C-alpha cells in the first residue's frame, strides 16, 4: 500500500490532482463555517456586480446573489449528489454483478442479457427517459445518473466474481456448510471490494459531470437551490453581456473533473505493472547513437563490426549489453556467434542495422561498416536503403515476427517494393518465386495465406524468403531454427547452406547450439557477458576449445549415442551486465579462476585466426 502511494505521488500530475481535489473538498466541508452571505438571498439592485469589487469576491449573478457563496454551496451540492449517485450505482451494480457471477448459469445469462441491453443505449437517452417519467428535480436526476451507471458496475464486478467463484476457498466454504448469503458476504465481498472502490474512483468524476449536465439542461436541481450545473444553465442567458457568471461555475466543474481525472490516471498507472517498469517503449525508427570515443578506421571486409558497444539505459541504470565486440565476414562466409541467453549476441546482431529497441537502447561506441561505410550514425534514409536490401535479417519465432494482418505475399512484395519500383503484379510473381525457392509447396495458393494459416516451419521459410527478396550481400540470422522441431530445423539449415554456396551470401548465424554451428559455420565466435571470449575456425575451436567457458559450453551438448553421460551444466548464471566487476566476467563461475583473473581486463589475443580472452587457457594457442 505504501509502495503504491509512493508510486502515485511520484507522478507529479497525479499529486497535483490530489492537491486540487483535496483543497476543493476541504473548502466545501468548511463552507457552512465561512462568513459568507446566504446563497439564495436576492438583491436585484446589486445584480451582475463584477468580480473583485468591494463586498463580493466573485461578483453577483442576475438576481444579485453572491457568486462566491453560491459557488461553494453549489459545489457542495454537486459533489454530494455525484458521490451519492456513485455510491448507489456501485452498491446496486455490484450486488447484481456478484449475484450473476456467483450463481452463474441461467441467472447469470438473464441478468447479463438485461445489462447488455441497458448498455446498448447511449447513456443520456436512458437518463432522459427516467427523468421524463419521474419529472425534473435533483433527486430524480440523481436516480437517473445512478441507474445509468448500474450496468457498468454490474458487468465489471461480474467478471471479477466469475473468476473468484470457482476458486478453492469458495468451494471450501460451501463444503463447510455455509449458506450462499454468508459466502457472498464473508468470502466473496472482501475480495471484490478493492475492485469496486477502483471502479468508483474512476467513475465518480464522470457522475458529478453527468448530474451537473442534467441540472444544466434544467432537469436537475430546481431554483432557488443551485448546483454547479444549474448555475451555469441560469447564467447562459446572460453569458454574452456578463460572462463572469458563466465562467465561475464552469471553471469549478472543469477543475473538479480534471483533478479527479489526473488522480484516476495516477491510480491506474500505479496499479499497472507494465507502465511501472518502463517496458512500454520502442517507438524510434533507429537505435539512438551517442558515441564518445573515436570511430575505428575502415577495413576491407564486407561487413565489419568494430569495437561495438551497445547499452540499455533504464532509469538510472546502464546495462552494458555489448561491451566492445569486433566481428567481420567476407562474401560466402558463414560466421557463427554463440552464447547463452543474455550474452549480448542478439543485441550485437540488431545493432548492425540500428534495430535495437530504442529507448532504452543506445549505441555508445564503435562502428559497423558495410563495404567500408559506417552505418552507425548514418542518416536514417541511408540506413533504410541498406536494410533488407544489402543486409537482411531472419528472426526467431516467425509467428510474432510476421505481420498478423497482411498476407504473406503482400509482406514479401513489400520487402521488394521498399527498394525497387516494380509493379504489384511483378512483385507478386516474384513473391511466388521466392516461396518456391524456399521450397514451400503450392506457392501459388500459399502466397495469399495469412501467417496464422501456416505451420511454424512454413512461416520460418517465409521469413527466409523475405530475407532473400532483394538478394542481399549479408544475412544475419538470429536463432532462426530455435522455435522449430528437429527435422524442419535440418531442412532450414541445409537451405541456408545451399544459398550461401550458390549466391556467395555472407551469413552471421546467431545461436546457442554448438551442433548447429558445427554443421553450418566456417568460423565461430563465443560470447559471454557482452564480450567475445573466444574465436577461431569452427573445427579448431570444437576440437580444442581454449576458453574454459567454451569448453563447458561444448560439454553441455548431448551427443547422439553417447549413452547416459551426465551432462555437465555450468554452475551459476551469467552476470547481470549493469555492474560488472573488473577482470574476467566468467571468473565467478570458473574453477580455474585465480586472483589475477579479477584484476583488470583480460585482452582477447592469440595467433590469427584464433584468439581467446583468458589468462589460463585450456589449450595453448
Amino acid at each position, binding site marked *: 500500500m505504501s509502495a503504491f502511494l509512493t508510486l502515485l505521488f511520484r507522478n507529479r500530475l497525479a499529486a497535483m490532482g490530489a492537491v486540487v481535489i483535496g483543497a476543493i473538498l476541504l473548502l466545501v466541508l468548511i463552507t457552512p463555517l465561512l462568513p459568507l452571505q446566504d446563497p439564495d438571498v436576492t438583491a436585484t439592485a446589486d445584480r451582475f456586480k463584477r468580480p473583485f469589487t468591494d463586498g463580493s469576491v466573485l461578483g453577483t449573478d442576475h438576481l444579485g446573489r453572491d457568486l462566491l457563496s453560491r459557488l461553494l454551496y453549489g459545489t457542495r451540492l454537486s459533489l454530494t449528489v455525484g458521490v451519492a449517485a456513485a455510491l448507489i450505482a456501485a452498491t446496486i451494480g455490484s450486488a447484481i454483478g456478484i449475484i450473476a457471477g456467483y450463481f452463474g448459469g441461467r441467472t447469470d445469462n438473464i441478468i447479463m442479457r438485461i445489462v447488455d441491453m441497458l448498455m446498448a443505449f447511449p447513456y443520456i*437517452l436512458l437518463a*432522459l427517459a*427516467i427523468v421524463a*417519467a419521474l419529472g425534473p428535480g435533483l433527486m430524480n436526476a440523481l436516480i437517473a445518473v445512478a441507474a445509468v451507471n448500474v450496468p457498468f458496475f454490474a458487468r465489471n464486478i461480474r467478471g471479477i466474481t466469475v473468476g473468484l467463484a470457482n476458486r478453492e476457498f469458495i468451494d471450501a466454504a460451501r463444503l463447510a456448510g455455509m449458506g450462499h448469503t454468508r459466502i457472498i458476504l464473508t468470502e466473496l465481498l472482501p475480495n471484490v471490494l478493492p475492485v469496486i472502490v477502483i471502479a468508483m474512483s474512476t467513475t465518480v468524476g464522470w457522475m458529478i459531470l453527468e448530474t451537473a*449536465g442534467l441540472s444544466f439542461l434544467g432537469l436537475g436541481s430546481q431554483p432557488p437551490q443551485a448546483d454547479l450545473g444549474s448555475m451555469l444553465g441560469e447564467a447562459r442567458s446572460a453569458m454574452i453581456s456578463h460572462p463572469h457568471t458563466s465562467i465561475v461555475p464552469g471553471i469549478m466543474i472543469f477543475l473538479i473533473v480534471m483533478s479527479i481525472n489526473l488522480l484516476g490516471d495516477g491510480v491506474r498507472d500505479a496499479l499497472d505493472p507494465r507502465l511501472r517498469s518502463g517496458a512500454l517503449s520502442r517507438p524510434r525508427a533507429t537505435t539512438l547513437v551517442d558515441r564518445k570515443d573515436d570511430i575505428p578506421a575502415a577495413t576491407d571486409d564486407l561487413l565489419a563490426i568494430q569495437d561495438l558497444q551497445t547499452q540499455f539505459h533504464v532509469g538510472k541504470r546502464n546495462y552494458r549489453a555489448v561491451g566492445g565486440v569486433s566481428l567481420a565476414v567476407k562474401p560466402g562466409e558463414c560466421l557463427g556467434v554463440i552464447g547463452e541467453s543474455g550474452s549480448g549476441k542478439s543485441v550485437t546482431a540488431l545493432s548492425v542495422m540500428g534495430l535495437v529497441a530504442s529507448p532504452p537502447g543506445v549505441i555508445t561506441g564503435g562502428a559497423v561498416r558495410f563495404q567500408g561505410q559506417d552505418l552507425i550514425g548514418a542518416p536514417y534514409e541511408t540506413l533504410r536503403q541498406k536494410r533488407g536490401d544489402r543486409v537482411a535479417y531472419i528472426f526467431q519465432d516467425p509467428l510474432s515476427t510476421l505481420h498478423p494482418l497482411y498476407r504473406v505475399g503482400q509482406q514479401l512484395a*513489400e520487402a521488394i517494393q521498399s527498394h525497387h519500383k516494380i509493379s504489384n503484379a511483378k512483385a507478386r510473381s516474384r513473391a511466388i518465386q521466392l516461396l518456391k525457392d524456399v521450397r514451400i509447396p503450392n506457392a501459388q495458393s500459399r502466397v495469399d495465406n495469412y501467417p496464422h494459416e501456416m505451420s511454424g516451419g512454413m512461416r520460418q521459410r517465409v521469413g527466409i524468403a523475405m530475407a532473400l527478396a532483394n538478394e542481399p550481400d549479408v544475412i544475419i540470422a538470429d536463432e532462426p531454427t530455435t522455435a522449430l522441431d528437429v527435422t524442419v530445423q535440418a531442412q532450414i539449415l541445409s537451405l541456408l547452406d545451399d544459398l550461401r554456396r550458390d549466391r556467395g551470401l555472407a551469413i552471421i548465424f546467431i545461436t546457442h547450439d554448438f551442433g548447429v554451428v558445427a554443421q553450418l559455420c566456417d568460423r565461430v565466435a563465443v560470447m559471454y557477458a557482452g564480450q567475445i571470449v573466444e574465436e577461431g575456425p569452427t573445427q579448431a575451436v570444437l576440437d580444442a576449445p581454449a576458453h574454459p567457458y567454451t569448453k563447458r559450453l561444448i560439454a553441455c551438448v548431448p551427443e547422439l549415442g553417447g549413452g547416459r553421460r551426465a551432462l555437465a551444466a555450468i554452475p551459476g548464471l551469467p552476470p547481470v551486465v549493469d555492474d560488472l566487476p573488473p577482470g574476467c566476467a566468467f571468473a565467478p563461475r570458473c574453477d580455474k579462476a585465480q586472483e589475477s583473473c579479477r584484476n583488470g581486463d583480460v585482452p582477447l589475443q592469440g595467433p590469427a585466426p584464433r584468439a581467446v580472452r583468458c589468462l589460463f587457457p585450456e589449450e595453448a594457442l
Partner: protein
Amino acid sequence: MGGYIVKRLISAVPVLLGITVIVFLIMSMIPGDPATAILGSYATPENVERLNRDLGLDKPVVQRYFIWLGNMLTGDFGRSFSLNRPVIDEVLERFNATLILAGTSFVLCSILGILAGVISAARQYGFADKAITFVVLIGISAPSFFLGMMMILLFAVNLRWFPVSGMYAIYGGGDLPDLIRHLIMPALALAAVATGVIARLSRSAMLEVLRQDYIRTARAKGVPERRVIMGHALRVAMVSIIPVLGIQAGFVLSGAVYIEIVFQWPGVGRMLVDAILTRDLLLVQGGVVFVAACYVLFNIAVDVAQSLLDPRIKT
C-alpha cells in the same frame, strides 16, 4: 461476409425488442395517472379520456406493450400533443439535424483523435507527445456545454468568426456554406471529449503495437518509417481502436443533447429536453426508442468493419 452481416442483424432483433421493453417499463414508472401526468392537471376530462383510449391505458400492461410495439412497427409513434403533429415526423426531422452535427463530430473526433494518438506514440516523450497529452487532458476535462459556451464567447462574440447559434442564418441562409459556418463550432465542441479519449487510447494502442516483433521485421526489411507507422502499426492498433470508436459514437450522441441546447441546434436532443419540460411524454418515448435503435444498428456496422479489418475474426 454477407452471411455475417445477416447473422449480426438477426442478433440485433432481441436487443431492439429489449430496448422497447426497457423504455416501456421506464415510462410506466410515471407516478399517478399517466394521462393526467401527460396532459397536466388542467386537462379537460374529455382529453384525458381520449388519451387513455389512444394509449390503451384501460388495458392490461402486457397487452398495452404489444399494441404500442405493433403501432411502432407500422411507423405510428403516436401524436405529439405539444406540437400537434405525428411523433415520427418530428423525430425524423430533428434526427436529421442531429445526424449532421453528431456525424460531423464523430468523423472529426475519429480522425483527429487517431492522428493525435499516432503522432504522440511515434514521438513518445518528445515535445509533440507532451503538447498533445496536455491538450488532451484539457479536452477530456472540459464539460462540453461549458466548452461550447466559451467558444461562443470567444469565436462568435469577440472574434465574430462564426455565427452565435442555430443551424442556418434566419435571413438569406439555407445553403451548404451557411450550414458549414454554423456547424464548425458545435461540431468541434462536441468532438472535444471524444477526441481526447480516442487520442489516449490510440496512443497506448500504438505504443503496444510498436514494441511488437513484426514492427522490427518491417523496419529490418527497409520499409519507410512513415509506412511502418501508418501502415503496419496503425493497421493492428485499429483492431483495438475501432470498438472504442463505437462506444465513443454513443458518447458523441449523448453529448449532442448539451451542444444542441448551447448552440440552439434544432436536433433530437433539444427536442427531447423540451419535450420533458413540457411533459410531452409520447414524444420522449418515440424519440428515445428511435435514436437507441439507430445506435444499435450503427454498432453492428462497427462490428462488421472490425471483421473486415482483422482476418483472424471468424465470420
